């Protein structure tokens, strides 16, 4: 297959679309940034793409709760299109606000009789925070994390605390190999259960994470780059290469 096409979906308040498109392009993909209104009008537009990415930002202002309104629009209007997209073996990535949207729309873990089983809540500090964190990937199953063990990336969010309904749910997700990205123990910035920074669905092709890989594409993004030899690229790029490479 030739260059995969990436649909970068922006809603009112999405604000990381440009740099996310740049990252996919740097990884060899062919991204288009599309307004959510277009997809709501014509859900079949998604069929032209191999990768769907919901980038970071504050969709609909994060009013009511982060990602909630966008997620409900997916639930109400795009459920079939999403099902089809996944069934076709394609990839879905949600970064930060995109992760909040994915988890609240049930695309990472389907609802059961009691509704959703996991969510992203306010940081324990009850404060927005921008800092870099150390991460560990255990994503044998996750397409995006192939070959990645340790990673340093920035987070920038207020509502990134991973919460689940109960311990049993956490155990289930853990056993299914879905808790694929974690903060190192002393790096958990928001009180996330089991240090979870990102999770995938059972197939490993739908993935959401709070940290921003598109903010570590250039070596000068790293907060200590003036203290180290300047490399060729930032470590976040690998994640986008994995996604693009999946189709090449």
């Amino acid at each position, binding site marked *: 297959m030739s260059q995969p096409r990436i649909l970068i979906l922006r809603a009112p308040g999405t604000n990381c679309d*440009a740099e996310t498109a740049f990252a996919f392009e740097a990884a060899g993909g062919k991204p288009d940034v599309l307004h959510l209104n277009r997809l709501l009008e014509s859900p079949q537009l998604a069929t032209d793409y191999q990768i769907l990415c919901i980038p970071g930002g504050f969709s609909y202002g994060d009013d009511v709760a982060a990602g909630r309104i966008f997620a409900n629009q997916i639930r109400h209007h795009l459920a079939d299109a999403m099902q089809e997209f996944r069934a076709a073996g394609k990839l879905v990535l949600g970064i930060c606000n995109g992760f909040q949207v994915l988890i609240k729309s049930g695309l990472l873990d389907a609802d059961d009789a009691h509704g959703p089983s996991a969510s992203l*809540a306010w940081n324990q500090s009850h404060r927005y925070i921008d800092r870099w964190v150390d991460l560990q990937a255990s994503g044998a199953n996750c397409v995006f994390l192939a070959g990645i063990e340790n990673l340093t990336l920035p987070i920038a969010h207020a509502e990134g605390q991973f919460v689940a309904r109960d311990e049993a749910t956490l155990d289930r997700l853990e056993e299914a190999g879905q808790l694929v990205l974690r903060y190192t123990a002393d790096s958990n910035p928001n009180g996330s259960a089991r240090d979870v920074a990102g999770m995938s669905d059972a197939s490993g092709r739908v993935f959401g994470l709070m940290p921003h890989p598109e903010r570590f594409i250039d070596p000068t993004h790293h*907060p200590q780059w003036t*203290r180290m030899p300047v490399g060729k690229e930032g470590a976040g790029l690998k994640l986008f290469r994995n996604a693009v490479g999946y189709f090449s």
Partner: protein
Amino acid sequence: MLWEIDVHPRQGLPDREAEKVAALAAELGIAEKLVVCTARGFLVEGPSLDQAQVDRLAAELFGDAMVESTVAATVADKCLQTPPNGSGTLLHVLLKPGVMDNVARSAEMAARDFGLSVDAVRTLRKYWIHGASEQQIQEIGSRILANDAIEQFVVGPLPFDRLQFGSEYQFELKTTQLSGLDDQGLRQLSLQGQLYLQLAEMQTIQQYFAELGREPTDIELETIAQTWSEHCSHKTLAGRIAYRDERGERQFDNMLKETIFDATMQLRDRWGDDDWCVSVFKDNAGIVLFDDHNNLAFKVETHNHPSALEPYGGANTGIGGVIRDTIGTGMGAKPICNTDIFCFAPPCTPSDSLPPGVLNPKQVMHGVVGGVRDYGNRMGIPTVNGAVYFDERYLGNPLVYCGNVGLIPKEMSFKEPKPGDLIVSVGGRTGRDGIHGATFSSAELTSESESLSGGAVQIGNAIEEKKVLDVLLTIRDRGLYTAITDCGAGGFSSAVGEMGEEIGAEVWLDRAPVKYDGLSYTEIWISEAQERMVISVPEANWEELRDLCAAESVEATVIGKFEPTGRLVLKYKDQVVADLTMDLLHNGRPPVIREATYQPAPVVPIVSTAKENYTDDLKQILGSYNVASKEWIVRQYDHEVQGGSVIKPLVGINSDGPGDAAVVRPVLDSRRGVVISCGMNPRYGEFDTYHMAASAIDEALRNCVAVGGDPSRVAILDNFCWGDCEKSETLGSLVRAALACHDLSLVLETPFISGKDSLNNEFSYFDESGTKQTIAIPSTLLISAMGQVEDVSRCVTMDFKAEGNLLYLVGTTKDELGGSHFTLVNHLEGGQVPTVDAELAKQTFASLHGAIHQGLVASCHDLSEGGLAVAAAEMAFAGGLGAQIDLSALPVDDTSLSTESRLFSESNTRFLCEVTPEHADAFEKQLAGIPVACVGQTNATAQLVVKESADNNSLIDAHIDELKEAWQKPLNW
């Protein structure tokens, strides 16, 4: 039917809001150990809504069952009042009618997306407070929970069962009688109508209408007042001033033009073909060249008066407003980063010492930081630079400076509306918010301002502005409009008036989309509702433009036409409500003539006794509010969005050291960077505002140079915040600062490209004895610098990099402790204030830049508050390394310079540089002719040791962790 859905923290999870309220009640001395429970509430109105539907909304929209529980019922239902933990008095806090409720608007749309019939949504907050008396409840309501400028609180059940949003407006043309009024009458009319015009101006207006043989309509008076306001016309500083100081007298016809603008014009002439300024002092922001394809626009504004009354909303709309300035520059720039500088009273100010009408400084700080955070972060613009200054005199009048840099394609840097173009409003709807902001910001604050001018305070909606920005950049690139400007102070009045100045305009006020019914034609015209831009659109492009906006859910409405009449004609449903000549508005204001005097204070020597050890002095300066770490603020701002972050605000081995300036790369596939920094020294103004201004310019530049910025490509902005300039000494101190700006700009070849002033920053109140007291802010000049760097990989940071490196001090240390932080922490008076040798500064900046550019410098930090000792300490703890420094090696102008001066003098144009031994020769050669000396070395001891010379006792000896703790502790909230 009106339903209410309450969202509570789930049982067993912490109630953060409740903890905050209880802590604040204790801190403000209202009540100890309160038991508080809170909930977020949503009032949802819909004629056919039933319990099942509302329960569904509660579960799927409003609450998150993982962490929250919900209660949903009709509004009078007792279950909504039941205290979650058994007891407590219920308080509701609601936004006042007409105040922007962003969450409600989104919720309305989201609820309808369920296919439900929802008329309106309103949000509220609920508090159950146990353990407080009735009076304490009132006090908690008014001092902690609700800000009277925008919110109301209700104790007990809600007193309404439906949501009301305005009633229909009945048109009635209002005129004001001017004929026959004497001077007293004119003065009174100006004050009562909140016009804030001076007598001579009122007389001119009276004369104008006498010649027309009619009385003005209310909207005509408002239009003139807004156009002639200090905020919009800068009549004081651009006016005639007779200035006198110790060197003699000088007459200005237009003070700003003859000082600051003049320096820029001279520089542009001098540069000729190499002129890199593009558009200065005329558009909403100044523009300079950047790369082959793009220019940069830069503007800094203040939003002081609104922030004093409602810190969150004031700062929120302050940042929103300055972002619109760059969006409204040329044909529209894309915002790439923000800079925010605040001045507050010390946060430790006891609540019981506050004058009436003044908010607690800590609350002000929380509100302002929150306002900037929520707007900047939501807009997706990194906030990369800032500073916070503290002084008791900012108590009633905090300062909030918000700045924005925009990237604009070269060919889009200019605009010109054409006769016949449609006047189109894009973005937010018009409401009653922000009425009289332009005239209000030109008035002195009083303890009653809160109730008198409540309408001037508002809340922003960042997502609306983001939507407008997204769609505007698309339609800009399609060439569908000929000019753009923002609706700022003065609303449509200001935007249309400025845009149509050379042509003439007719506006159809009834066509402007409004948030709710009941707005009069005048309110529509002068409303300062946020998130609105005005563009001029050739008729042929209108439909395409309207459709593009609609595709992104942005409202665009034709509200008038630029008609080549030279007149401003306003209509409401075909009735003419105003008809004025553009000439009256823009050239009719009588010149303001003012006296200005300045007498610099004589230099009085500092009386202090030498100490054997200065470690405690160093720690005290590190822990002083101005110097202390601002990490609590910085981490709440997204400083990396847009993916171009190069040098972050906090740097070093643990990302917690104070960087000198921020660097961003606005074009992701390019290595070229933009450097943002600032300089400000209100304390020096007590000594001489000339040296204060010179020092601020030097500081802004050296911050820029310290990270690798090219000093020959730095553009700067001035923002004067001063007291009442009708007082000749106050105005004199400002003119003197402007003279320094002129002089320094010319020698350093650093052009001013834009600026703004905010005068009348004074707060009056009546004390317990009934005597009027006035607090004027210290004269505060902010210099903001925007530099450039060819290749960001040459940039350096201020943290020590490795042991065994040499430390060079660049620049001469002088006996300049006047206004220093050493005198501040030791409560000393007098001394010589730092001065600038501009010629030497220019050479120093150029030489040092060369060294950084060649890769000869491992780390570099500018010397500012606290001088050498503070700079060395910051570099050491940021790098996790120790150092030894010998004071005898310092380049000085007088070998008898005291130890205190060597350690703590704040002499300008100085840097501490870390250089590896192998680069030492090249570094020294590169800095030939500049005062520079090797003064020490880094080491692995984690100990900072400063001695007079190698074999003396230590003057400072401290572990870097101790120093860091002293620096981090005060504002580590």
